[in-house]
């Protein structure tokens, strides 16, 4: 289409209508495509030829106006509600009268269970590849949390289950509850906000609890923003969402997964009674151990004392034994043994006579025998 411009000197100027027509004809050349988004602001009136709604990107919130011929829309009987995810088949168009850009939809399909499952699987693979679910990321829960954050819906059951178990097991527990949407298109963002608010208030563990529900009900808990927020939470998170068989992605990103809200309650606080018993056992151990150490030292001291006491007597005995031994050796060396064999000792002038030389006839000598002795006179010498 030729778009006419008016010349002002060397400046080409388009009228608004001509400009819009020109852009519209450009847009019309673009191909027909599928666009995915969440339906919001649905406007339908019997007086209008078209139905209008806005498609919203759940990831970044980008918006796209959509129009669809009313007859076609009604024929699909989709009964769309705010937040429902759809695939719209159409091409971009410009509403020339207002210069508004939008998608002219020719067909519309509800994002079905199969699509959800496939999308979930893709997201799961992507986040797993980033390491968001890795075991080494999991943090241990504090044994004795100063303050517990609880994100829950205003549905009484999940909240009541967590609080009952927590206060029964550990009466001094301090819990900060953030009630929020846990279902519908606002849930994911609301839970993320609640998580942040609890962390700002200062908690050292967070429980995200939601009772069971349909697959669609639990979808917000597999929302990428929510899953990332849980993984990035500065304190450990316990996820108790849905029933045992459900595995929303938040369960995988959480530090601990609890099969039910009650189990989550048991996980975040210790049993006070058991804790006190353990503490008391430690204390008895402390006394017993110290007493045992004392006892051992006392026994060692007693043994040392006993040895000390026995030492002098041992010394005397040892001396006596040595003396006896010496005496024996002494006796072996004495002349007595020789005398017993028949020898005799002769003394003259108190000296032992070893030679006849120097003895004089008639001189008195003393003779000593093994038994007794006698005096004698020298008869002659040789």
């Amino acid at each position: 289409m030729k778009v006419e411009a008016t010349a002002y000197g060397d400046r080409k100027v388009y009228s608004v209508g001509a400009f819009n027509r020109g852009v519209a004809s450009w847009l019309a050349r673009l191909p027909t495509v599928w666009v995915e988004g969440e339906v919001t602001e649905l406007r339908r009136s019997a007086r209008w030829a078209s139905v209008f709604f806005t498609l919203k990107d759940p990831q970044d919130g980008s918006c796209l106006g959509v129009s669809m011929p009313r007859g076609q829309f009604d024929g699909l009987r989709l009964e769309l509600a705010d937040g429902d995810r759809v695939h719209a088949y159409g091409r971009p168009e410009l509403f020339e009268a207002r210069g508004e850009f939008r998608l002219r939809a020719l067909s519309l399909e509800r994002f079905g269970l199969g699509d959800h499952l496939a999308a979930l699987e893709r997201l799961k693979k992507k986040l797993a590849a980033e390491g968001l679910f890795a075991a080494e990321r999991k943090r241990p829960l504090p044994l004795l949390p100063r303050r517990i954050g609880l994100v829950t819906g205003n549905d009484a059951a999940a909240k009541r289950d967590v609080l009952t178990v927590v206060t029964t097991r550990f009466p001094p527990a301090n819990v900060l509850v953030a009630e929020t949407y846990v279902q519908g298109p606002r849930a994911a963002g609301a839970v993320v906000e609640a998580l942040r608010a609890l962390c700002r208030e200062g908690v050292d563990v967070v429980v995200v609890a939601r009772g069971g529900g349909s697959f669609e009900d639990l979808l917000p808990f597999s929302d990428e923003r929510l899953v990332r927020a849980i993984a990035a939470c500065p304190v450990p998170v316990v996820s108790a969402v849905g029933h045992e068989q459900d595995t929303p992605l938040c369960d995988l990103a959480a530090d601990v997964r609890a099969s039910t809200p009650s189990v989550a309650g048991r996980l975040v606080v210790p049993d006070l009674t058991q804790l006190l018993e353990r503490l008391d056992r430690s204390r008895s151990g402390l006394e017993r151990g110290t007493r045992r150490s004392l006892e051992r030292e006392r026994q060692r001291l007693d043994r040392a004392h006993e040895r000390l006491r026995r030492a002098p007597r041992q010394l005397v005995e040892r001396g006596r034994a040595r003396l006896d031994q010496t005496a024996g050796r002494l006796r072996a060396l004495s002349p007595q043994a020789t005398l017993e064999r028949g020898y005799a000792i002769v003394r003259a002038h108190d000296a032992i006579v070893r030679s006849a030389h120097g003895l004089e006839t008639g001189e008195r000598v003393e003779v000593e025998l093994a038994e007794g002795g006698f005096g004698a006179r020298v008869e002659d010498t040789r």
Partner: protein
Amino acid sequence: MTFEEAQAELEQIVHRLETGEAPLDEALKLWERGEELYRFCKERLDAAEGKIEELASRAEAARP
């Protein structure tokens, strides 16, 4: 010191005392330290008063 740390240290001390490895003056020091840790843990459990608050009402109360 957290409760966990105190409890872990207390149990370590008890173990050391029960094996009877510690010489007497160390044993006495350990015992003193153990009693101190026991008191700390006990106080942490006794002092806390259970409390359940709603975040929304807290936020409202915080407003002037």
